[in-house]
């Protein structure tokens, strides 16, 4: 059984069908990419997976259980974490506080615990802090932990966002264009990082990406979308030579 199964997923916004009967599977412990020209429906598909959009039709199974109609915060609790296309950190909070927010759903203390401070709550706070520090150390930014998020350079902000997603201890990590805005060195670091994440945490990675070099180097499987429909699925070699894919990106040859 695949970790994530998407069956005939359809997302309609009025007259526009952003995602059209999309079906694919993501196996455990794999690195899969979702690619396609701009406007193909990739981020819409992601938003369906994370519960931000309520799909018009179809089903999404994660670890065998349906995600339809489940609220986003519960989907995160079930084990799916995501990063955003435009980095969405909590701007006025520090790096450490940002990453600690990832642990929110893993710890049960609530408002009464906060006010009364029973021993359980204090243990929970330590656990949150320790996990957050581990994630920061993994991403190599623990020295930035007390810096306010909005003052950091873009590359560091992206790392913080990744650390935050890791802190929620997911089984599936959805990365929305993780290479956007990164320079050549940073892109290479990202490739190593994604591999390390998979090896160290056993997390399955599913990413949207436009940068073909990165996609070809890192993916084990690629799903290609165009106008909301899946037009191809396979390993990098197959996709590179697939005529439908080439046509979608470059257009048909004129006679």
């Amino acid at each position, binding site marked *: 059984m695949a970790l994530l199964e998407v069956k005939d997923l359809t997302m309609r916004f009025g007259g526009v069908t952003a995602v059209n009967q999309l079906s694919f599977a993501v196996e455990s412990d794999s690195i899969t990419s979702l690619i396609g020209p701009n406007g193909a429906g990739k981020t819409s598909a992601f938003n369906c997976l*994370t519960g931000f959009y309520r799909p018009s039709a179809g089903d999404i199974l994660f670890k065998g259980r349906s995600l339809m109609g489940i609220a*986003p915060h519960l989907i995160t*609790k079930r084990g799916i974490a995501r990063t955003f296309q435009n980095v*969405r950190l*909590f701007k006025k909070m520090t790096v450490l*506080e940002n990453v600690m927010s990832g642990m*929110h759903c893993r710890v049960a*203390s609530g408002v009464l615990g906060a006010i009364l401070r029973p021993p359980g709550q204090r243990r929970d706070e330590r656990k949150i802090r320790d996990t957050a520090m581990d994630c920061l150390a993994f991403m190599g930014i623990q020295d930035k932990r007390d810096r306010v998020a909005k003052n950091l350079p873009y590359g560091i902000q992206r790392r913080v966002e990744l650390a935050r997603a890791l802190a929620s201890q997911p089984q599936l990590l959805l990365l929305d264009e993780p290479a956007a805005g990164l320079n050549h060195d940073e892109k290479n670091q990202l490739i190593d990082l994604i591999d390390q994440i998979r090896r160290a945490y056993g997390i399955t990675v599913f990413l949207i990406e436009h940068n073909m070099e990165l996609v070809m180097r890192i993916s084990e499987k690629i799903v290609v979308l165009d106008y909301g429909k899946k037009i191809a699925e396979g390993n990098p070699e197959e996709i590179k030579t697939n005529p439908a894919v080439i046509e979608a990106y470059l257009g048909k040859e004129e006679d």
Partner: protein
Amino acid sequence: MSEEPSKLLLAESRLSSTLADRLTGYWRKAAESPTQKYLVGLLVVLVATLPLYSNNYVIEVGSNILFYIVLCLGLNITIGYCGLFNLGNAAFFAFGAYTTGILCTMGVNFWLTIPVAILVSILVACIIGIPCLNLRNDYLAIVTLGFGEITRLLARNLTITGGPSGLVGIPRPSLFGYKLRTVTDFYFAFLILVIIGVVVSYRIHDSKFGRALECIREDEDAAEAMGIETLKHKLLSFILGSIFAGVGGCFFAVKMASVSPESFMFTQSTNVLMAIVLGGLGKIPGVLIGATLLVLFPEIFRGIGSWRMLSFGVVLVLLMVFRPQGLWPDKYK
């Protein structure tokens, strides 16, 4: 609305705020040393012993300041931490005051009315919160403003609340046989409330729950994506603000020995909001300073007569232009 002037204003305020930050930077460095502990300790001693060295007028003003601090701390949790624009705080305060007023005039012991008032506060916060907290902030402001006014008009027109003249002759409470009567008695009562309020506010701030509120304020969708149940947390921040205001209202009712609808006008809500924005939204020392200034400024400048409210307004505008983040400096860089 043209873009250019607001950009200039923003740039100017950023420049001036770095200037202000540099000036307060020296104070901030001192604050990290034992000097701060001595200063704060001294302040606490001065505040705790105020009635010993002041006349009744000063104690009354002090009592007023402490009462406003309680209201401001509550609203700080809703607006400062969670970013929810609640303009109807006076309504929560009214429900607490009238609950105590009505029950005490019926002969119920004051101390028993406090848990009832807390339950009423929770109920009222849920009634207005559950349908409205998913609204965008601007609309939430309008809805809560309306709620504040509805509450005041209800209070003015119902017989149980005594109509336009309100409730009078609310009996004073006794604690283990000692009757709370003088200005000094209520000064200490409010001081205890402030201490509880400050402790609760700090504990909430330094906890998972408090951070969740701040995440919601910063980016609601990202907060939801991080596993934070936003509606529940928004409602809880609303309820906390309501409880603070409600309990403040209970003590206000017995201190004044009367409750009238005129105490819950819209200006009451805006005064509390003004105090916490002035002092620094979300920062507890800022809330304390803001509330103090809010009460002190009109009192100190009584001498200049009708000019005092005008000058207060001018000072506020200047502060918002040159230091919109409030008087209290930001802790982080």
